[in-house]
């Protein structure tokens, strides 16, 4: 990257109109949650713990023991979402909590990605996926003014747009769909695994159709993509849901996993995948697990990409149009 600043690089990439819209949407988000008795909280951006996900790479920060040796010290992680901190607050008695904060994800740069971005995240105890989806739809309606969100299961969306059962199809059958639909892939993608094929088909065939007429919530994900969601037994699907607006993925929610033994097993599996991908291991024990050992109340929670929300509300095409100083000018 060219780090020698050009003379105009001090200027924001977003117009003042967009920055005013951003401020207005922040205020409306706070009003939405205040009206529902949610408590606004703040949790650390810099933590000893981090979410372990195969494809999420946190930024490591070294806290030096000695200021004269800044590179030597304790490793902490900039949070990829405030999930751990907020669930610890739930375990400590929180009922309905929300937070508006920054999150960091290494390597994610593009028209719809900035490595530092703003997340709105909330949890409410007692909610299942059904109430979780309703609350998400209500927030989307209040902020985007595009009406309530429609709902479609992951299976139905794949059936409709890719003509295949995503829960039963083999990797070869998924690969055949990609080939038949003329999706041209690099050699390294040809040998992708089952979830890799599902993601490819989702990105190429399904996502462009989601949320076109009205916002759309995609729910009941494959169990292999449960992340921190509960897995339901029959049919075996993850109680995970995502909001799409005009083909853009805007929010990700779960009926939250509360069993610490299951999370430990998923952490080990995710770290094994990371090792296979040539990525560093992430710490498997965390204060979240300690909280879950003590007892995490059942809840549903959602993380929403606020920059993307502003982008959609503004009718813009890239995050740079709604962030004052994106990474290239940060």
């Amino acid at each position, binding site marked *: 990257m060219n780090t020698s600043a050009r003379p105009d690089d001090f200027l924001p990439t977003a117009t003042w109109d967009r920055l005013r819209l951003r401020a207005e949407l922040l205020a409306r988000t706070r009003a939405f949650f205040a009206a529902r008795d949610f408590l606004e909280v703040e949790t650390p951006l810099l933590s000893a713990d981090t979410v372990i*996900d*195969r*494809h*999420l790479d946190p930024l490591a920060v070294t806290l030096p023991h000695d200021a004269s040796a800044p590179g030597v010290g304790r490793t902490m992680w900039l949070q990829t979402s405030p999930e751990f901190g907020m669930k610890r607050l739930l375990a400590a008695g929180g009922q309905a909590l929300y937070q508006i904060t920054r999150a960091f994800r290494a*390597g*994610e*740069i*593009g*028209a*719809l*990605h900035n490595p530092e971005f703003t997340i709105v995240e909330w949890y409410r105890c007692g909610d299942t996926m059904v109430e979780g989806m309703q609350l998400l739809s209500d927030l989307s309606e209040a902020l985007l003014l595009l009406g309530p969100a429609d709902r479609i299961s992951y299976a139905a969306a794949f059936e409709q747009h890719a003509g295949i059962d995503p829960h039963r199809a083999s990797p070869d059958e998924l690969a055949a769909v990609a080939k038949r639909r003329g*999706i*041209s*892939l*690099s050699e*390294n*993608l040809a040998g*992708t695994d089952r*979830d*890799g094929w*599902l*993601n*490819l088909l*989702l*990105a*190429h065939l399904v*996502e462009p159709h989601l949320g076109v007429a009205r916002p759309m919530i995609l729910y009941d*994900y494959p169990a292999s*993509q449960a*992340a921190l969601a509960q897995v339901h037994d029959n049919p075996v699907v993850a109680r995970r849901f*995502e909001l799409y607006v005009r083909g853009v*993925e805007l929010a*990700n929610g779960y009926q939250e996993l509360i069993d610490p033994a299951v999370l430990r097993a998923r952490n080990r599996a995710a770290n094994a995948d990371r090792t296979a991908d040539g990525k560093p291991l992430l710490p498997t024990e965390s204060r979240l697990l300690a909280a879950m050992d003590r007892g995490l109340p059942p809840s549903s929670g959602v993380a929403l990409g606020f920059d993307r929300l502003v982008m959609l509300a503004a009718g813009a095409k890239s995050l740079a149009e709604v962030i004052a100083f994106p990474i290239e000018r940060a």
Partner: protein
Amino acid sequence: MGSYNTSDFKKGLKVQIDGDPYMMVECNFVKPGKGNALYKCKLRNLVRNTMLDRTFKGGDSLEAADVTEIAAQFLYRQQDMFVFMDQENYEQYELTKDQVDETWKYLKEGMVCSMVLFNNKPISVSPPNHVILKIDYCEPSIKGNTATNLTKPVKLETGAEVICPAFVGIGDMIKVDTRNGEYLERAKG
């Protein structure tokens, strides 16, 4: 030449795929549903001028293409060979009619064109955006009629056919936009 990793991917990058040079015209980073990073790209084949949609995995790399653009003067045409000269080092390049493509219509001896080289071999040539050429043939102009809504086809000295206002005549010099083949204005010879 080295190679580019997906994190270097951006518009305008010149890369090689299956031995052909391509220019990246679009690159979208996507990461659906916490899945693996994908780069959905559109690339233009610089030889055949066709478009290729291809998706790459984070960490994939593409070989860089040795593609350069030079100013080359058109010297002469010999049957189906068009001979150009590099303005800087006077090296001569011969292009076939296929390589010259639609550009032949505007080529006049001495004209300085923009030539694209791949591994130091010419793959395409484009004329200047605006050229001034003489009208070789057209129907006679209608005296006294300067309305611009009346048009007629004219044939230029280089072979191009252009739609012009009715008031131009044989021997007139006109300015043409070579990107869309449209008449711009009458020029002083």
